[in-house]
């Protein structure tokens, strides 16, 4: 089971955001996409999510184009966006029921799934509070729960820990790693914070829309120190 991008190229007017970007993600594996601001991480996420259209290249899920007319395959993915995307006036539970319903889950199935997912993410206690009364960390947990509510095979995280304090960031990272292992889920994690990674995560280092490194290394910091001067100067 693979999610792959083939020769993705994307421009914003004259600025090149992705340049023949090809990478393969594997089920059951956490792939961290590291790179400085402007490397093309968010563009990659938006293309995979279908929020922008591929100008060149293809995204395939198990060999089939991800964004076919039926949009069925997109249901196998869950997304956490860089900017918060919750309905602030409604409760966490209402937000999750809405997302589950959009994926076709019945009310009973949604209710059960909310309890399971939020227990794993330690956010059951905030479910019935309006989102605008939650802390940044709690909101992020609700967003991650929303991405997982329909039990996707793949989870895409676009800098999910932006704005969180160190403790919340670490806890969120541990929870996502634990869930990914438990559910044998493929995770694509765009970030520029190396603390969020674990030694057995796969790394893809991006710079100016291209892949500069793809593989495993014992310690992300070790690898980054090799590339720091050349590629990820502001990581």
């Amino acid at each position, binding site marked *: 089971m693979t999610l792959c991008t083939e020769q993705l190229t994307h421009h914003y007017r004259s600025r090149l955001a992705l340049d023949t970007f090809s990478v393969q993600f594997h089920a059951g594996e956490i792939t961290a996409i590291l790179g400085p601001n402007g490397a093309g991480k968010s563009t990659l996420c938006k293309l995979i999510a279908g*929020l922008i259209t591929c100008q060149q290249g293809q995204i395939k899920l198990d060999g089939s184009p991800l964004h076919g007319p039926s949009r069925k395959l997109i249901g196998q993915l869950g997304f956490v*966006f860089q900017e918060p*995307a919750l309905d602030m006036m409604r409760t966490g539970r209402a937000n999750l029921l809405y997302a589950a319903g*959009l994926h*076709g889950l019945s009310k009973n199935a949604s209710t059960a799934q909310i309890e399971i997912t939020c227990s794993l993410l330690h956010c059951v206690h905030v479910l019935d509070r309006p989102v605008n009364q939650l802390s940044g960390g709690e909101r992020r947990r609700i967003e991650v729960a929303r991405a997982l509510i329909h039990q996707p095979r793949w989870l895409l995280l676009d800098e999910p820990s932006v704005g969180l304090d160190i403790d919340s960031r670490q806890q969120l990272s541990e929870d996502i790693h634990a869930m990914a292992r438990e559910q044998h889920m493929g995770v694509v994690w765009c970030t520029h914070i190396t603390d969020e990674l674990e030694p057995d995560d796969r790394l893809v280092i991006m710079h100016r829309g291209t892949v500069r490194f793809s593989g495993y290394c014992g310690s992300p910091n070790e690898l980054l120190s090799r590339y720091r001067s050349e590629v990820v100067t502001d990581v």
Partner: protein
Amino acid sequence: MSEFFRPLIVIVEREFARFLAQRTRLLSALVRPLFWLLVFAAGFKSTLGIATQPPYATYVTYDLYVVPGLVAMMCLFNGMQSSLAMVYDRESGAMKVLMTAPISRCRVLIFKLIAATLVSTVQAYLFIGIAIAVGINLPWIGLLTALPAILISAFTLGLAGLVLASRFRGLENFAGVMNFVIFPAFFLSSALYPLWQLRESSELIYWISVFNPFTHLIEIIRFGMHGIAMTPTGWITLAVLVVITPAAGYLFRPEAQ
């Protein structure tokens, strides 16, 4: 099948939850037409009557004449409010949740329109109920026969609002544009005066009103409220909607969001 319609249910639920949570929106949706009916129309009632013209079988009082126009005005306001909410959703990021759901863009558009239509219809019937309670003499059968016309009008105006919303990025710009749509649409129509009376005062205003699609929505509601469920205009509007609604799915393409 239930999996197919589940997104519709949650989209409708969300639209109603928002409508009920915004108390001022709920209140102003009712106060606005009631003000027209109880103050404006009450003043004109004693001085202005409407001579016999279809669908009225006899001379009618002005307050009875003005009710269909006010129902259409509620649909117009709600259609614009729903599209304003879409602009807000786009700004707040909530639109992304909808756009990454495994449902086609066309289905997203239709479901959102159905949700807005249902909110408009509930508002319209609340208003009609109050109008009857204050003594407006509407035929009871009209409550039933007006339903298709109200649904078609609310859907059409919701679609117009979404088309408009797709062109605007910021809330500020869009709120301004709404005034340029709502007021001309309402005043240059048969909402407040019959077309023949408009013609007596200005040929230009008459022709603008004739070509104003809002006039025709008011008229199908008027006929519906007086026992004629669907006029030829109603059928034509329905046919046009069937054709253009899927095409409007184009507005929900990723680049448009």
